[in-house]
Structures are given as C-alpha cells and as structure tokens.
C-alpha cells in the first residue's frame, strides 16, 4: 500500500473513528466509572459494586426490567405478525405505482415526531376521545370508555412506533425473492402454508432477524410512549433511569442501570439468535 492510499484510508476512516471514540466510547468509559462509585456521604465516594447489587436485591428494579423486556418481546412479535403480510403485499402483490404509494404510506407517519404521534394516539384513546365518542354514537357502549393508561395502550403505541423498522427490511429481502421459486413450490405440490414455511420465510430470515432486533431495541429503549400512554402503572426501565438521573440526582445508580440495560438487552438478543439458530453474520451479510 502506498503512502498516498494509506493517507486517504486514514482520512476516510477518521470521521467514523472520531464519532465512535468521542461520542460513544469515551462517554461510556466515563459512565462506567460513575456507575462503580458508591456514595458514602455528602460529596464523598468510594469504589464498589453497590449500585449493581441494588438492581438484584431490590425486587422493584428487577421486576421493572423483566416487565420491560417481556413487553418489548411481545411488541416485537406483534409488529412482525402485522408487518409481515403488509411487507409481503408491498413486495410481491402490489405492482407499479400502487407499490410506491403503499411504501410511502408506511413511511408517512414518521415524518412527524414521535411526541406528536403519541399525542395523536392519546387523543384517539382517551375517555373523552374519538374512539370513545364513536362507540357511544354507534350505541355499542352507553358511557365513556377509557382506553388509555393501560398496558394495551402502551402496546399499541410501541407497535405503531416500530412498524416501519420491521416493514422496510422485510420488503427489501422479500423483493429479492424470485417469483419463480414460489411458482415452482406450487408446481411441486406445495400449498400456501408449506410454500410460506419452506420458501418465503427461510428466504426472508435475514430481514426478519434484523427487523426484530431493531424493533426490540427501540421498544426497550423507548421512553415517551410508556410514560405518556401507560399512566399510573407504567413501569418502564428507561423511565427508571431517567428518574435516577434527573429526579433523584442519583447519577451513580442511573449509570449502573444504563450499563445493565445495555448488557441485558444484548444478552436477550444473543439468546434470541441462539434459539432461532441464526447468526449475526448471516443477517448482516
């Protein structure tokens, strides 16, 4: 390699290295150092694992995390179940302008901010909201119904927020599936179900895996939707981290929770890949 190409390689790589180093690695090191500080008095600290131990000894924190993780997994499954037919229709059934229009319609809600989207759902679901009024007008219910402030509302919000991130990778992988393969499947005596199971899903697997990882991580790290739509029983782990940092002034605990979230969510993704027999390399490749 000549000196010139070396230099251009370094220059090309520099913005990425800077971004990674300055914005990701250095803050994480600092955060880790904060997380292993134990407060013993006003302005006095010592190094120890107490903040991490608190997560395992206080059932509240542990339960909050489990709840967050399980609901995020459920949201991922739901998003997949709703997103797959949509993606299949866009990639395989729709043609020409209809295809572009449908794809655009999936994108459209993401042109407004997440906060606005969440408020939109709140207007629909609240007791004096659109759905409640419509149901009363139709005579299906005789008094206002409250659809907001429960886990169902959180789920609706999460699925809606992450739909795009499931549909796009699915459309891309399904697009590359040759229609003739599906026809061949039918010619060889397959029915709709076996073609789906033997041909479509195996081909779409990289899209399914990458979509699921993104949706799971987005749900787990979501803050606005659970807090605004969950009401009095919304326990979400990111909310706990916010509380520790901002409301309780307990940066040490908040930093420890941040690392636990990073570690545990990576663990869940790894487990998910193991169970379904996938590897990250296949997905990315």
């Amino acid at each position, binding site marked *: 390699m000549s000196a010139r190409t070396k*230099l251009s390689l370094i*220059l090309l790589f520099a913005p990425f290295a800077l971004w990674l180093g300055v914005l990701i690695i250095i803050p994480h090191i600092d955060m880790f150092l904060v997380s292993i500080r134990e407060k013993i008095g*006003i*302005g006095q600290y010592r190094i120890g694992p107490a903040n991490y131990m608190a997560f395992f000894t206080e059932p*509240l924190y542990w*339960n*909050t995390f489990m709840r967050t993780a399980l609901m995020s997994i459920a949201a991922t499954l739901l998003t997949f179940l709703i997103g797959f037919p949509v993606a299949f229709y866009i990639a395989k059934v729709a043609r020409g302008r209809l295809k572009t229009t449908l794809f655009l319609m999936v994108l459209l809600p993401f042109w407004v901010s997440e906060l606005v989207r969440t408020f939109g759902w709140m207007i629909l679901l*609240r*007791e*004096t909201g659109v759905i409640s009024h419509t149901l009363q007008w139709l005579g299906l219910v005789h008094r206002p119904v*409250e659809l907001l*402030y429960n886990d169902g509302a959180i789920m609706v919000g999460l699925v809606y927020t992450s739909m795009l991130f499931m549909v796009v990778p699915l459309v891309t992988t399904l697009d590359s599936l040759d229609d003739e393969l599906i026809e061949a499947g039918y010619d060889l005596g397959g029915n709709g179900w076996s073609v789906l199971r033997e041909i479509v899903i195996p081909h779409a697997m990289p899209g399914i895996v990458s979509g699921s990882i993104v949706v799971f991580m987005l749900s787990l790290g979501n803050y606005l939707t659970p*807090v605004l739509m969950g*009401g*009095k*029983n919304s*326990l979400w782990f990111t909310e*706990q981290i916010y*509380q520790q*940092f*901002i*409301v*309780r*002034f*307990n940066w040490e605990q908040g930093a420890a929770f941040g690392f636990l979230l990073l570690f545990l969510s990576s663990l869940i993704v790894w487990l998910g890949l193991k169970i379904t027999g996938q590897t990250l390399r296949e997905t990315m490749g």
Partner: protein
Amino acid sequence: MIKKALLGAGIAALLAGTALSAQAETLRLLTWGGYAPDKVVKMFEKETGIKVKVTKSNNEEMIAKLRATGGGGFDLAQPSQDRITGAQAEYNIYKPIDLGRIKKELFIPSMLEATKKNTTLNGKVYGVPHVWGTSGLVVNRDKAPDVKDYLDLCNPKYKGRVSYRLKRPTLIAFAFSMGMDPFAAYSDKAKYGEILKKVEAKLIECKPNVKAYWTGGDALLNLLRSGEVWAAMAWDTGGWKLNKENPAITFVAPKSGALGWIDTFALPRKTKAEDAAYKWINFVMQPKIAAMITAAAGNFTASKGADAYVEEGLKKRFQESFPQEAIDNIKWYPPVPPGLEEMEGKVLDRVKAAK
C-alpha cells in the same frame, strides 16, 4: 500536514463562533414557564442592549443541568428556595449573591428576609425571592363538592376521578393531611422515615382512585377541563386558569394547609454575565414589570407594590381561594436537608409499582 491544516481550520471556526456570540452581551436564564414573558424580555433588551436567552425547566432539571456542568452554561437560575442549600452543599453549583447589588427596596421585606434565611449556607446567602405560590387542590365543585383536604382525594366515591403527581410535594401534603408534621421531622431521618412509611401505605391504598399520575401541567389541565378528572393536587395558578373558563372549577386551599413555595434568583457558580444577571433581577422586580410577570405566570411576586398593577380578576380568584385563615395556614417549605430525597424516591417508586 493536511490533518494539521484541517485541525487548524476547525479551531479557527470554533473561535470565530465564540467570538461572534460574545459580541452582544447575553444573559442565559434558566427559569420556569411564564417567568420571562416575551414582552418583558423585549423591554429589557431595549433598555440595556443585553440579549436574553430563556430556557424553561423545573427544579430537578435545573439542579441536574447545573450539576452536569459544575454550575456552568447559564448565568442566572430560578430554583425554589428550599432546594438551594442541599444542592449547594452537595454539588457546589451556585455562587453567593452580593446583596449590595440588589435593590432591596423593590422587595417585600418579610419575603426577602425569609428567603435569605432559608438559602444561607455557611453564612453566605445564595438566593433572593422572585415568584411565590402554593400547591393545594384543584376541584370541580359540581362533581366533587366535598373535597376539602388532600385525604378527600382518597374518598371511594371518586374512584378513577383523581390525579396527583408522584413527587415529593404529594408525600408532604398527605403527611400533613394525616395529622403529621413532616417539616418538623426534616432533621430526624428515623422519624421522617416513619412518616414516609405511613404515607406510602396511604398512597397505595388510594391508588384505585387515581386516573393517572400527572407529569406536565398542561396534561393535568386537559384532564380537568374535559371532566375526566374531578379533583387533583396541583398548583394554584392551574386552578385559577380553569376558573376563568369554567366557574365550577377552582383552586381550594386544603384544610390542612396549602404548601407554599418561593422561586428565587440564584447565580450559577460559573456565571459569565453577572452584571447582566443583577440588572435582570432589579429590572423584573419593578412593580409594573412584576405585574406583567404575574399576568403571564399566574402567580404573585415578591415585588413590593406590584399588587396595585395586577388584573382584578386574578386578585378576586386569589381572595376566593385564600381567606385570611387559609393564608395563615400556608405551610412554607423549609430547606431540604441532603439525603431526604433519596428516601422519598424509594417510597415513590414503591407506590408506582404497587398493584
């Protein structure tokens, strides 16, 4: 070579940026919504030539922001008087106020003295009063006529029709309403823990009554306005604002006492525009300007003689909510000693997690 040149260009650009911003004097104000209305800011800019950059926040975020920078990034902050000494002792984020540069004659003397006392740490004063108000009950009198005290929010009649915040004022309010005195127990952690335990049990018992724990003032006003919530613990100004639209809703000073707060002016330790900060304080404390802030924020100020310029409607609503004995019964927050907020945090977490 190229790298160095690039670096140089970058630094030059950065320097140019700071030089540009330093040209016009700027006051970076960390405050609450309504405390620096556009009209007042424009008048100040016209009179002094100093630009004002307003950041709206709340007590916890103010401390968190200043802590993150060691007291930098802002030139003047407006924390509540009870949250200054604790934060100062722990994080050293404020600078003492030079009382000689404050026009004392603009302040209501009793309020200035009380704030000075409560914000003194190691013989130095860290705050002067600006806006004061209370939290108590905002009640829809058509639907919940017998809500007179915080504990009435737990009346089974109002199941699902009540809202309050999961924050420290709620703990304090319920303690008072249950006949205890949490302020007297501030200095005794064991005793304060006992009080918190009883309040925790009560709040968990009361949970079925709660529609949602409110977090933002506007969201709460919407809940009350739409009739989804009939009674809430909230700030007085919220109640008066709704009273203008719907006479049935108003602020009620609870039997066990409204909780009184005073928001102050405090100097962040690394303030870069101290002169401008003092100028701002002396500017907004003038009676006519203070009345404009009262009109925007809905709360009264510590400015002497400003009452004369305040709109009649607000005065009337204040008098309706606060007969003389209710004023005498206001419980003013004493300074919070470090450590209490941690205990309170755990209680609030458990209340939220309870089924």
